[in-house]
């Protein structure tokens, strides 16, 4: 896994850090908030590899990595959205829409199979962005609406979910999901590259600064000349494109556009981002944390699968409980930082 080394102090929280009395306690809690997920991941992975013979095998790790890849790509877009202080509930629907369009389009060649879903999903994101940035509607409710609508469109083009479009297994497009480079699946490589690009864009580009500024304090950002509306539109479009891309990769991996996927995916993505140390109130966060969050969720899922007697219901209970613990810890650490 590529875990980007990033500066611990994000741009928009400098005011927090300049507060009087910032000392070791504060830095400790800041580190706990940012790297807690990574520590939990390492501990869990070590314990699991000692407890289960089949955990640390190449096959299992490879399997976890590939199945994490799709959620990770969605979570990458979600990270940008959440840093601006918004939320995107439509990603699950956009993911499955992208997958179905890609599978349908694959019969006309790889270019169509990729560009068609990315265009359509980008448009969904653009609509989200326009309604949120220009019409000033609440992100929660706008993306809720497009979540319903995008799934409706997907059901519409698949005869109410009854038809599954297949991807030719020999097609070049299928290689995007099934191929391997140096023994590692293509989706994992693509995800890794996207995260590197995402981290650089967020940390080193003007656009990244705008994202933090909008989430930190929108009014202040606007007064300082940050293009608030444009930044939001780009962020939601990006989220749509990435969710669509995740769907494309997933369709190539499964060699079909499965219509029942993506339900609840927005929640997994939000959970991963939050676990990764990004604050839902906006202004602070980083993409590597989201990657760790996704892998952590997958490892928990895998461990529960390894304890064969526990079925998927326990898995849901465990992830819910885990999420509660993480949220409490995050809120507590976040408050501590503000108080100190």
């Amino acid at each position, binding site marked *: 896994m590529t875990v980007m080394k990033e500066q611990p102090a994000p741009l928009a929280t400098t005011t927090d850090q300049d507060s009087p009395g910032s000392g070791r306690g504060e830095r400790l809690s800041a580190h706990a908030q940012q790297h807690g997920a990574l520590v939990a991941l390492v501990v869990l992975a070590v314990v699991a590899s000692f407890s289960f013979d089949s955990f640390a095998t190449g096959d299992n790790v490879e399997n976890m990595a590939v199945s994490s890849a799709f959620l990770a790509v969605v979570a990458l877009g979600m990270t940008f959205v959440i840093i601006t202080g918004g939320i995107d509930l439509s990603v699950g629907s956009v993911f499955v829409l992208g997958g179905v369009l890609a599978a349908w389009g694959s019969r006309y060649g790889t270019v169509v199979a990729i560009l068609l879903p990315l265009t359509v999903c980008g448009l969904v994101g653009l609509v989200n962005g326009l309604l949120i940035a220009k019409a000033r509607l609440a992100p929660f409710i706008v993306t*809720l*609406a497009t979540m319903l609508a995008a799934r*409706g469109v997907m059901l519409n083009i698949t005869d109410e979910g009854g038809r599954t479009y297949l991807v030719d297994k020999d097609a070049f497009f299928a290689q995007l999901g099934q191929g391997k480079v140096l023994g590692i699946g293509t989706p994992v490589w693509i995800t890794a590259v996207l995260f590197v690009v995402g981290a650089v864009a967020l940390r080193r580009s003007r656009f990244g600064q705008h994202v933090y500024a909008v989430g930190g304090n929108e009014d202040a950002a606007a007064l300082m000349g940050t293009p608030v509306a444009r930044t939001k539109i780009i962020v939601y479009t990006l989220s749509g494109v990435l969710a669509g891309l995740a769907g494309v990769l997933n369709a190539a991996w499964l060699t079909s556009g499965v219509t029942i996927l993506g339900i609840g995916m927005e929640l997994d993505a939000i*959970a991963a981002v939050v676990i990764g140390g990004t604050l839902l109130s906006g202004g602070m966060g980083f993409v590597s944390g989201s990657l760790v969050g996704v892998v952590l969720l997958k490892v928990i899922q895998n461990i529960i699968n390894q304890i064969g007697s526990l079925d998927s219901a326990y898995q*849901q209970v465990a*992830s819910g409980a885990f999420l*509660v613990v993480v*949220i409490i810890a995050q809120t507590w650490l976040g408050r501590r930082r503000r108080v100190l």
Partner: protein
Amino acid sequence: MADVALRKAVPADRAVLLRRLQEYGVYGGLVVLLVFNIAFTDNFLSGENFRTQAVQVSPILIVALGMALAIGTEGVDLSVGSVMALSTSLLALYLGYGPWLALLVVLVGGAAVGLLNGSLIAFVGVQPIVATLALMVGVRGLALVLLPQLKDVRNPGMASLGSGDIAGIPYVVLIAVALALVVGFTVRRTTFGRQLLAIGDSRPAAQLAGLPVRRVLVLVYICCGMLAAVAGFLATARLQASDPTSLGNLMELSAITAVVVGGTPLSGGRVRIAGTVAGAVLIQLLTATLIKHDLPPSWTQIAQGAVIVLAVYAARERGKR
């Protein structure tokens, strides 16, 4: 929601117009749908049809009542669908001890989830959407742990509760209407209701004014959980089966839609119960209309999305009072 304060000042008369549109738009929409159906839908004006629609809308309405309270405090409860699933599992497990005990267990289950939601929000300070999201995942899992697969729930008392009626009005509908009246009264006429709205208007101000903010928030989410539990109980009674896998799926979205379409702003501080009732009916009628005119269910979702955007767009320029 991070609404910018830099918006242009709206002229007073236009602001009033927009506010009226937000509050009464839902009734306009209902009238349009009714006229359309009376003109173009066969058998629309039959008692049987009204009965069916009313029975189907009841669980959505009951859940939406709790949601309206949560939204009134500038919160939201995403766990309501999972609470319905939990209550159907508990009902299946405890029905053997009699329906009343089963109802009690179901209510306690809903209240417990609400207590957890409320405590996370009020005491830990977690954002409502996140806290209830975590519970949404966990509680659905718990429901499935308790009852791994679909189970028939056959009990004479339950059957009559699910499908019986008084003077042609089904019990389920009567219960929904009664609960709407109680919640409406609570919001308008009780101290608890006023405190709830004050918190939604401005939590810091409510805190400074010495209101028992935390207690009210916890109570609001307990109410929300218990109402969802009642909805799950009634839905199970009607279906005569417990299905924790699918009962209440996407219910949180329908409930939020009903509340928002009904003119309750997401920014809190106001609750419109009559509007919520109308909003729930509007959604139900919209779905029924599309299905009756042979449009596939996928169109319902697209239409519901469009209705949400329209409703929120109509409400957009009116901030808090």
